[in-house]
């Protein structure tokens, strides 16, 4: 227990001193996950909305796949992306394996299904509420879709942040495709795993504290945004 509190104190020192190694790791984590979530949002938001609003052949299957992929084990995604990007894989010539780009790709694969599936549910609920009314007011399908997306914008942002939460916290995928190379592909989660196994508990704990704090900040930002919106619009 004493060891733990000592380690915790040292961890806080590292954070307060803005340890350069620590900063580098945190910055790369944010860069990788934010990029991944941005791309996943570009794909997942329209995909989810389309699945909610348009009927087409194979929609049911696509939804089932999406919902299954929501819970994909990151290590499996990492493995698949690894095989695709490895030298003998179909995209091996690009030489992306063990780069931050590979980590972004893996996280996009993880996060897109989450954003798309949540968006589908959000838009579908809104559609159930609004469809008859908007149609009676004379809305055509395109303007109906625009209206629904705008009306659900706060929920959609929350969905994107749920994706961010997944991306920043996962370790399996980025470890496999990034390789946890120092000063290159080392992010918070992979470092925590490594430093813990090396017995370097201080750095691991410091990173853990930062990771949790980041999650806390993101979550409270989303919650307060929702509450403000609710106050204004009821």
């Amino acid at each position, binding site marked *: 227990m004493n060891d733990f509190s000592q380690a915790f104190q040292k961890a806080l020192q590292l954070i307060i001193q803005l340890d350069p190694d620590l900063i580098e790791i945190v910055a790369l984590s944010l860069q990788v996950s934010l990029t991944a979530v941005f791309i996943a949002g570009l794909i997942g938001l329209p995909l989810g909305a389309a699945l909610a609003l348009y009927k087409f052949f194979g929609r049911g299957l696509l939804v089932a796949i999406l919902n299954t992929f929501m819970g994909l084990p990151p290590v499996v995604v990492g493995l698949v992306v690894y095989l695709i990007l490895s030298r003998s894989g179909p995209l091996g010539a690009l030489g992306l394996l063990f780069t931050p780009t590979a980590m972004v790709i893996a996280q996009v694969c993880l996060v897109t299904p989450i954003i798309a599936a949540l968006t589908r549910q959000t838009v579908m609920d809104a559609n159930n509420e609004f469809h008859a009314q908007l149609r*009676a007011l*004379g809305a055509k399908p395109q303007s109906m879709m625009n209206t629904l997306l705008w009306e659900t914008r706060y929920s959609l942002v929350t969905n994107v942040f749920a994706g961010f939460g997944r991306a920043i916290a996962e370790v399996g995928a980025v470890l496999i495709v990034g390789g946890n190379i120092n000063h290159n592909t080392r992010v918070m989660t992979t470092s925590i795993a490594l430093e813990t196994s090396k017995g370097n508990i201080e750095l691991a704990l410091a990173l853990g504290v930062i990771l949790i704090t980041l999650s806390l900040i993101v979550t409270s930002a989303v919650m307060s945004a929702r509450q403000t919106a609710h106050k204004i*619009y009821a």
Partner: protein
Amino acid sequence: MPSPVIPASPLPLKIQHLSVSRRGKPLLDDVNATISSAGITIILGPNGAGKSLLLHIAHGLEVPDRGSLTWNQDIPKPQEPWRAFVFQKPVFLQRSVQANLEYVLSLHKIAKARQDLLIEQALQHTGLIQLSKQSARTLSGGEQQRLNVARAWVLEPKVMLLDEPTAELDPSGVATMEMLIRKIAQLNTKIIMTTHSLDQARRLANDIVFLHRGRLIEHTPAKVYFAQPKTRLAADFLAGKLLDTD
């Protein structure tokens, strides 16, 4: 109240052999009627008579299985701006009162300058001008229903269809709403509304379309309907004897 005549009218509303059934159960059964007079037409009948369904078809929100319903020979589509539909339970966008009206006008591509004029007019008529900046979803029940009417009225429709517009209101809300409906009719908008309330029909109707279990029992001027109903069912309904059950 004498029926004024609507110029360049979408009337007559012609209903011919209209039938709808769901899961083998007939909801509307060979309904025939022609509505050509202006003023207020009340579709009256007990719950489950098919009143709402008929109104939905009249706005193009539902399609009949057999037969036809036409406005001056045209089958209705929901996008037509000359006709507005008022639901019993309105759904508003999470925006201000004014923005909810702007939304409708923008859907129909009304120029911005004209939008302001139409919105002010609709808010004046419905007594909501003071609340124009308030969020629509924070209005009281009565105010929401007035906004519901304002939203229908803002396009200056020639026909307004109202589905049980006072079913959720308290007595003073009902009175305000009925006043509003009379005003709209006086300003030459044809009103067709459903109700199961005899009293309301008595207060508002120029003519009555009486439905029971999907069948049209009578279509008569209100005076005739209330003074000397032509059918046994109508007389029973007036006497409070008509039950939904078999």
